[in-house]
């Protein structure tokens, strides 16, 4: 049972999902909030630029959405591959 093909597929689906989430995670924090801040500096937000907003508000909001999206998606993948808890 441990090495069944469906378990391997389940695991690769999980890895794909984690990778996508972590790319967004990196863009929201290291990207727009820090290293790519000059790129979005033209977009004004309340007396400063988008990068500042990402650094003090936006990144945290993105993290929240990511964790809930991941939880929702994984819980449905569990059912789809029949590995959910009864």
């Amino acid at each position: 049972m441990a090495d069944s093909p469906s378990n391997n597929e389940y695991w690769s689906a999980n890895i794909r999902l984690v990778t996508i989430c972590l790319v967004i995670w990196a863009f929201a924090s290291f990207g727009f909030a820090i290293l790519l801040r000059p790129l979005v500096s033209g977009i004004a937000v309340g007396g400063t630029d988008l990068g500042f907003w990402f650094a003090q508000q936006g990144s945290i909001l993105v993290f929240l959405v990511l964790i809930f999206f991941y939880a929702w998606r994984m819980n449905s993948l569990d059912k789809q591959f029949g590995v959910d808890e009864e």
Partner: protein
Amino acid sequence: MDQTTLNFIFVGASFALYFGIAIWARAGSTSEFYAAGRGVNPVVNGMATAADWMSAASFISMAGLIAFTGYNNSLFLMGWTGGYVLMAMLLAPYLRKFGKFTVPEFVGDRFYSQTARIVAVVCLIVISTTYVIGQMTGAGVAFSRFLEVDSTTGLIIASCVVAVYAVLGGMKGITYTQVAQYCVLIIAYTIPAVFISLQLTGNPIPGLGLFSSMQDGLPGGIEAGTPLLATLDGLLTDLGFNEYTATTNPWLMALYTLSLMIGTAGLPHVIIRFFTVPKVADARWSAGWALVFIALLYLTAPAVGAMARLNIITTMWPNGVEGDAVAVDDLPDWFRTWEVTGLLGVEDLNGDGMIQYYNAGSEAGAALAEANGLEGNELVTFNRDILVLANPEIAQLPGWVIALIAAGGLAAALSTAAGLLLAISSSISHDLIKSVINPGITEKGELLAARISMIVAIVLATLLALNPPGFVAQTVALAFGLAAASLFPTLMMGIFSKRINSKGAVAGMLAGLISTCLYLFLYLGWFFIPGTALLDSSQYLFGIPTTHFGPIGAVLNFVVAYFVSNATEEVPQEIQDLVESVRIPRGAGAAVDH
């Protein structure tokens, strides 16, 4: 009723609540003591995790940290929340599925090695002890500041309070107390913030107020309709300070952020909170809820920082930066109150009867001094903690709000201390006594051992906090660096790789542990003893400060573990099966009754 009496009533009421919970939530088994019987609702666990995570530093110091450097210290906001994304996707659900009680237990079983388990115990104890000293000291300071007892007495009262509910209830008692503590601390933090945001911008949500425009009729020559941050930038540049929204060094900022994120994800006292929920699916949701409750404070903190900084400037310059500064006799009452504590201090250096606050070390500051006959910054002491502590008074809120801040600060310190003490004591009773010293111990015996370990841990933490080693500040950097360099990579590889074997894991953990310690010791002194540092900060390797070293230690851990594992034997089949079973949620219920 005077303020101290009011503070006593609020703090006393909150303590009575914690004791009530402790008696209600006594632990009757090791499963209850270590993991609250794995029956905690994911939302409740999220709330407890938020209190567990947010310490006196988050509650009292963070807004000030941000206020003094503006944009650059946003790294604390991102670093201390972004780690939860890593924890939710890379660690928490799998460790919950594994279904044991401690972090070293997973390391020991997955890497089929007692040595690996003991190295993990050492990492855990160093990380958690460092942290707990800071929390106990913080609780002592909070007591002395609000209740006017001396800090030694305050510290001992705090230890006794924690002892009652942690020893009696273990994880179960701690969980429900943390929920109560979260409610106290978030209310205390939010109320003054909402009022200040309303006064300055008219927006009741501080996180939105931060990006709103100024209200009419504010003092200090502030133009209505200008965005708050633009106003703050303007005032600060006029006074010779750096612009609030300016970037200094993006690469170092990114590295420090990463260091805090990985460190957060690797902190054992937070990880074990996810062992308390019934199912793997709950562990995933629970990480999200934890971040919701953390975000309520973390989205507010930057607003508190910026608004309090603005308020301090307009207090010092009531007629605008071009006009006269505040006269010594006109300083507000709250200013005088806090001057007594030594957190604020003024000195009329040029004897003009006014207090000029500016940055004397800058070009703009020098020009200002030249033009107005100033002889230096006259706000000589300006402790960053004042921004949160004095917030209710600055906003002219009633005394009960100040009392609430006292109860909130103590709740933040106590909840984190309890979580850390549990991580330490369960590691001693479960990973050392049960696993190494006396494997034949009965369930009842282990529960007693866990309680005794808890008492010993509290006594030791109290003693260390009473005589804090001079290096407490530096060791906090060590705790984060170690969590990032030792536990996080090892746990992650244990789940995501079937190739990493016991030799690789031990070598990797030691590489992370030793390189991090070495880097800190080289620049801060051997075991932080002053005067023994071999190098100074101008000689940082690639200019990397000691606080930023975590990710480098983590990379060393990964690389060493990879090469050593590939050069040595394959992982045994039964361990590969264990990894497979950790990866899928099915069967987590069965793991409860082991």
